[in-house]
């Protein structure tokens, strides 16, 4: 059974995934973790937890394309200008939703116990202060304050929630049917994806695939002295067993100091180091595991 291909949105030679179901599918069914890079809307003051978009490593993209799991979408092309009708349709739905919110809020506040006079006054003051502050902030340091331009005052009186949509794929004016590519050659010809373009990148793709085919999960390893971190299971639950570095050919130079450094860092971080040797002629990876000998 072939499941439908997951669309990867390609822009500026980077692959993004915006849809959470697609992200879940990639992780659970393809062992592809990518990297969250977007600000989480309500946790926007920290860098530990991030959210959509998920950006994929180029090696992940290549693996997924070769496994016939994804389609590469030329994302700028898929974004088309909406027609006036589409826009009107969208706007009226938007307005309906706002109106609904306002009526719901009104009926809810009727049920709620009325605010005491004092509380209502305080609240009003607070809101006025806030508004003044915001106005000042906005006009601060600007020669020509925005007020001169007629501000687009809200047509609706009352509070409602504005939604800033995460992804466009639900819009009527997004059409990826004519700009999806299912092979690397097609995507390259279309000018949206060029990885891998040389021996080094081919080696990285080959090694990535090699590790992935062993059933591993793979993350970025630059901070652990390699190209990848290699996990025995989902990184959410398991520590990496290895850091891995790619050697692009059997004759690529390797200094003894690199073995010392990898071995030493591995000992410290409780991981072994994998040297992954790519043979481009045979399209094969071989591995050597480095650990400190424990003597000397």
């Amino acid at each position, binding site marked *: 059974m072939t499941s439908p291909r997951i669309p990867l949105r390609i822009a500026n030679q980077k692959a993004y995934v915006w849809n959470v179901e697609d992200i879940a599918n990639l992780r659970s069914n393809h062992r592809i973790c990518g990297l969250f890079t977007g600000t989480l809307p309500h946790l926007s003051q920290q860098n530990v937890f991030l959210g959509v978009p998920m950006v994929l490593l180029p090696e992940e993209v290549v693996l997924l394309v070769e496994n016939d799991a994804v389609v590469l979408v030329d994302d700028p092309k898929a974004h088309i200008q909406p027609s006036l009708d589409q826009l009107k349709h969208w706007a009226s739905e938007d307005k309906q939703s706002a109106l609904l919110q306002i009526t719901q809020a009104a009926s809810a506040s009727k049920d709620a116990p009325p605010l005491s006079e004092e509380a209502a006054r305080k609240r009003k003051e607070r809101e006025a202060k806030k508004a003044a502050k915001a106005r000042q902030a906005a006009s601060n340091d600007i020669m020509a304050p925005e007020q001169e331009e007629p501000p687009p005052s809200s047509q609706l009186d009352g509070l409602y929630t504005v939604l800033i949509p995460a992804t466009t794929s639900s819009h009527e004016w997004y059409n990826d049917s004519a700009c999806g590519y299912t092979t690397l050659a097609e995507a390259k010809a279309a000018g949206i994806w060029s990885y891998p373009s040389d021996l080094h990148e081919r080696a990285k793709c080959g090694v990535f695939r090699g590790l992935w085919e062993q059933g591993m999960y793979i993350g970025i390893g630059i901070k652990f002295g390699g190209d990848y971190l290699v996990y025995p299971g989902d990184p959410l639950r398991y520590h990496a*067993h*290895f850091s891995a570095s790619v050697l692009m*050919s059997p004759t690529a130079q*390797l200094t003894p100091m690199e073995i010392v450094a990898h*071995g030493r860092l591995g000992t410290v971080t409780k991981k*072994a180091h994998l040297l992954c040797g790519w043979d481009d002629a045979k399209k094969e990876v*071989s591995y050597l595991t480095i*650990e400190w*000998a424990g003597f*000397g």
Partner: protein
Amino acid sequence: MQRHPSYKVLQPVVTKYPRAAGCLFQTYNDIVYGQSRFFRPDDYETEALSAQGWTDVQVLELEGLSRAAISGKKPKMDATLYVVPCSLAETLSFGWLQDAFTQLSDPPEIFLAITSDDASIVYYKLSRGIVKPQL
């Protein structure tokens, strides 16, 4: 080096592979004198008498790598260990390391001894394939 007691044992390989003489000499001495005590290279029947003494120390020529390796056993261990010396100043490759395994008839692991001109030596264990670390 010629006046050193180890020279007697190493002379054939040292003269054959002069470029690798330094690292081989240093590694051999470390294994024979540094790692184990009361153990003389010309006295093979003397059992290892201390916790770390190596036994059955042998010098094995690795023609393809223009050097020799050293094999031996650590006490209370049946496995023969293979030590391949190299100098810090050399440049190796993945293929070089694989050749070391092949030329030693594919032991599961080899120990790379890396020597520096200040007489320091470090050992790192290389295993073929993906060998997960111990918990």
